């Protein structure tokens, strides 16, 4: 830990150590991250590895709208400028060094950025990689003719200037602390494949992606698998596998069975279902580990509904959730109970929030006190508002549906009627979700971009589509204090100060309960014991973040 580092990157060593402690040493396989290419080290890429996902990666242009599983492929084929390691610290990939205030990459006011790139990097087709590619990629995200995944942050970047093949600069129209985290998940695409292409949405990247990553795209058998082969000219250490196969197994039970039988070497996204944990841990020749993710499960309330205007109601509902039974029985104890949206691995996690208790009497007393009286049907009412509402989630998510029915039963014990109204995913997460047409939902959300604590899109009052905003504040949460804290936090570049801001915000929201926090998701990962490399990383969305390091022994 040096002074130089302290105020530079968004996280410093001490914070990182704290996070490591929180995440548990067991999860951290000793490894070196982000090593540059050693002398001719790539010659020994051997063997094949089958990685399975329960969803199919189909979007191969990483700057277009995609889902989590698509990123599983991006980390193999493409590179970002830099990325988060499991400790939440940046390490360079295409960048020669991560721009910081200390190394002059970012000006003290956070407005002027200089980015230095590695030399001698080439695209899979042999074309040299230059600063032009980076400029092109960054500008593509705000190109009006391009179906861009997101524009948050990018639209603040101005005057992107290529200084040389390995250096570029830009200015920000306002200080924006999460920018580095956004860049850490920005995959750089080759400019030359867009040359002369009329429709930027229909390039060769859609079918045969070209990147600078550790693996080259070989072929895809739609609905089944994608085959990748080692990029012998990779600019970092690795890859250590000759062939990487990303297999699509749409059913979690089949996926687990194939993992058990050895057809699958690494079981990826959606992972081993919690009910198989005990059995999986006893499997011969397999490594099985539980890893926390940044996604938290909650019962989200539509704060525009008359039923939820009173804090007492929200608190009573929270008291009437038997969280322990849900986590221990239905989820086999895999997830961790939480009181906030912030993952406990984060530096910004507030550990002092009041702990939830399941207490029907207290909940009833709270509602009695607030003047909600039981009618003849046993349902409470007050001022013509009946304490009855629907709850929705994705139809077919069995564990969630079970939790839902269990909550329905305990809510009934406090005179609250909750009806279940589930929808197929495309309906559930369409306007119904975005425009806050639901009463309540059960939802798993990751509100963070990488390790950055900013969640303005989700909790800022101006971000609710139902209230005329344009973000993801679908709970339609409005709290001036939270707005103020979010604004303050996004403009502050000092981690210690930001920590205080975001911890206060978590405390405010815990008291206010716009959503009833249930648990932080954890997933059961597994791989054959001759596989080395897979490492949980709460700051990246998917396991292949370090696929360049994966190997078979």
């Amino acid at each position: 830990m040096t002074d130089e580092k302290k105020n530079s990157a968004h996280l410093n060593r001490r914070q990182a150590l704290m996070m490591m402690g929180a995440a548990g040493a067991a999860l951290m396989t000793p490894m070196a991250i982000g090593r540059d290419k050693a002398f001719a080290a790539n010659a020994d890429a051997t063997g094949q590895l089958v990685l399975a996902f329960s969803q199919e990666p189909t979007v191969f242009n990483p700057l277009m709208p995609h889902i989590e599983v698509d990123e599983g492929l991006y980390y193999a084929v493409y590179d970002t400028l830099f990325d988060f390691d499991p400790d939440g610290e940046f390490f360079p990939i295409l960048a020669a060094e991560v721009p910081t205030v200390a190394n002059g990459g970012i000006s003290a006011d956070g407005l002027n950025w200089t980015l230095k790139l590695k030399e001698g990097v080439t695209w899979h087709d042999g074309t040299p990689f230059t600063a032009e590619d980076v400029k092109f990629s960054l500008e593509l995200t705000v190109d009006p003719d391009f179906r861009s995944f997101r524009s948050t942050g990018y639209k603040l970047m101005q005057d992107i200037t290529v200084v040389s093949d390995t250096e570029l600069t830009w200015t920000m129209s306002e200080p924006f602390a999460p920018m580095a985290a956004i860049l850490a998940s920005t995959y750089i695409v080759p400019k030359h494949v867009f040359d002369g292409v009329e429709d930027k949405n229909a390039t060769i990247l859609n079918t045969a992606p070209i990147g600078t990553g550790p693996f080259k795209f070989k072929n895809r058998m739609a609905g089944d698998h994608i085959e990748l082969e080692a990029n012998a000219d990779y600019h970092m250490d690795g890859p250590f596998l000759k062939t990487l196969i990303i297999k699509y197994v749409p059913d979690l039970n089949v996926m687990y069975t194939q993992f058990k039988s050895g057809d699958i070497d690494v079981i990826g996204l959606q992972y081993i279902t919690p009910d198989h944990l005990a059995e999986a841990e006893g499997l011969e020749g397999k490594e099985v580990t539980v890893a926390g993710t940044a996604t938290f499960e909650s019962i989200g309330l539509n704060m525009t509904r008359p039923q939820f205007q009173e804090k007492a109601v929200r608190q009573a509902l929270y008291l009437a959730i038997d969280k322990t039974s849900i986590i221990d029985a239905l989820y086999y104890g895999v997830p961790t109970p939480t009181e906030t949206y912030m993952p406990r691995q984060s530096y910004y996690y507030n550990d002092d929030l009041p702990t939830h208790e399941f207490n029907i009497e207290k909940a009833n007393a709270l509602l009695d006190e607030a003047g909600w009286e039981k009618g003849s049907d046993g349902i409470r009412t007050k001022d013509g508002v009946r304490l009855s509402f629907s709850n929705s989630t994705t139809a077919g998510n069995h564990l969630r549906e079970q939790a839902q029915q269990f909550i329905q039963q305990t809510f009934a014990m406090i005179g609250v009627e909750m009806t279940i109204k589930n929808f197929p995913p495309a309906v559930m997460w369409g306007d119904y979700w975005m425009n806050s047409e639901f009463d309540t939902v059960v939802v798993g959300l990751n509100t963070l971009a990488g390790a950055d604590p900013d969640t303005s899109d989700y909790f800022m009052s101006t971000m609710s589509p139902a209230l005329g905003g344009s973000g993801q504040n679908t709970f339609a949460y409005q709290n001036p204090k939270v707005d103020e804290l979010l604004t303050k936090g996004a403009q502050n570049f000092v981690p210690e100060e930001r920590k205080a801001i975001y911890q206060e915000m978590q405390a405010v929201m815990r008291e206010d309960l716009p959503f009833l926090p249930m648990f932080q998701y954890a997933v059961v990962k597994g791989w054959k014991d001759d596989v080395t490399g897979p490492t949980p990383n709460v700051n990246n969305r998917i396991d292949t973040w370090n696929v360049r390091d994966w190997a078979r022994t």
Partner: protein
Amino acid sequence: MTTLSTNSAERKPLIKSRALRRFLSHKLALIGTIMVLTLTFACFVGPYLLPYDELYIDLMSRFAPPGTNGHLFGTDPLGRDIAARLFHAGQISMAVGFAVMIIATCIGSVIGVISGYYGGAVSAVLMRVVDAFLSFPSVFLLLALAAFIQPGPVMIALIISATSWMEVARIVEAEVKSLRNQDFVQAAHMLGLSNRWIMFRELLPNAIGPIIVAATLTVARAILLEAYISFLGYGIQPPLPSWGNMLNGAQQYLATAPWLAIVPGVAITIAVAGFNFIGDGLRDAFDSRSDLG
């Protein structure tokens, strides 16, 4: 053949009693009747005899194997009594099956007989309508409609009916088409009988065998389709139980709690097989022509 048709008109009561006699002597049909009656009885009376409520969740006793603590068929992942759920589910699933059978067979028969009897433009138009419905993969229609509405039992029955009547129509049409040029129809024309009489009193009874076979398959289809849709997660939604949605989550627990999958599956098989057996018996019973063969 002329004699046959006049005979058939005269001896109608005789056929009825003979049909009943034949049906009763049909072993499979009897077994089927017993299966269906037993299941119906269990579904409608069973819930009152069981010690457990079908909605009561008890996480302490989840995944109890059949026979534990008075749980006849064990418990589900929420500790609910499977027997109680199975019987409640049966009321819904069988009601759906019956409703679909009645609706689909009525629609199908009427359209089929009209189309087959009149032929020509009427047939062309009606059969194109049938084609239109047939070329619409029913699962697609079901899933698409499920997106619009909250799928309850009534809606599911209506949707399944909408995708199940065409087969009956095609079969009746083909049968009537091949019968309408036969002597007894010509004779009926000559006797001055109305088209409606000929269609529904002469032709339709002669097509009753295929209709019953088709109707039985329709019950099977309806109960099965409900199961399919629910298995895919688009059918009747929990907490309301149906045999279909009881199977929905069962795949996950196949290795650890196989009774979750076995019990509703067996119930479906018994119900549908029962209806099929009955249908088969009825077919033989009503098949007057088989006497002559």
